[in-house]
């Protein structure tokens, strides 16, 4: 199953990048996507439950608009702090507990934290996230944990 799915994804990706439809290209597309998925189909999909993965992908797509809005807010904040003559910053390093189970969830949360107002992820391990915040009040905003709740909702029920 993961073999077929990888092959289809590779096929679509090839079509998008080439955009031409003569016989030679389509044939080489089919052959190379089959070959690539033969040697690497356990990398892209792996042992994850495909149905669960699909549900998570859909939930993640619903999460994107909120993330975009946060990124815009983050950049407005950045512009203000950069251009302010006295630079209103008070950097802190802090950590909070990692409640996520899946690796993809951790990656998504770490990257979301880096993109949202005034915080970057320094380190992630099984127990905690270590965060650098450019101002203390922003750190408090993150500690409320709305983002982690949203990512947890994407992860949903049990399963890895």
């Amino acid at each position: 199953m993961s073999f077929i799915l990888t092959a289809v994804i590779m096929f679509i990706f090839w079509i998008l990048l080439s955009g031409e439809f003569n016989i030679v290209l389509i044939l080489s597309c089919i052959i190379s996507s089959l070959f690539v998925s033969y040697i690497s189909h356990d990398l892209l999909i792996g042992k994850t439950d495909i149905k669960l993965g699909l549900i998570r992908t859909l939930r993640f797509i619903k999460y994107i608009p909120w993330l975009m809005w946060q990124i815009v807010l983050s950049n407005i904040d950045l512009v203000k702090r950069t251009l302010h003559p006295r630079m209103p910053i008070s950097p802190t390093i802090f950590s909070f507990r990692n409640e996520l189970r899946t690796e993809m969830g951790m990656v998504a949360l770490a990257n979301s934290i880096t993109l949202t107002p005034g915080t970057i992820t320094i380190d992630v391990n099984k127990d905690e996230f270590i965060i650098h915040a450019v101002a203390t009040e922003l750190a408090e905003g993150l500690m409320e944990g709305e983002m982690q709740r949203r990512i947890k909702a994407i992860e949903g029920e049990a399963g890895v």
Partner: protein
Amino acid sequence: MDIIRTIISGILIATGCFLIVIAAIGVVRFPDFYTRMHPAGKGDTLGQGLVLTGLMVYEGFDLISVKLLIIIIFIFIANPTATHALAKAAYVAGVKPWVKDEGDGK
């Protein structure tokens, strides 16, 4: 119709360029390594995203804009990851973060 599209894409590209310039100024102005990662990680991501979105609007809906969309998605994943890698390297190497009360901290 064409002129509206040109204006929209012009606004998007100008905003993106502005953000990239701000990010560059921020990298110079902020006091230490960690705070410098903030403009480099955020300003560049949205700046490049806006510039490429502007190009997408200018191009209209075809294969080229799909390729631009793929580049945008790649940047939105790769840029924060690179920021994280740099910050972690500094943290492991023991770079002391700048704190407000300790003067300029250099």
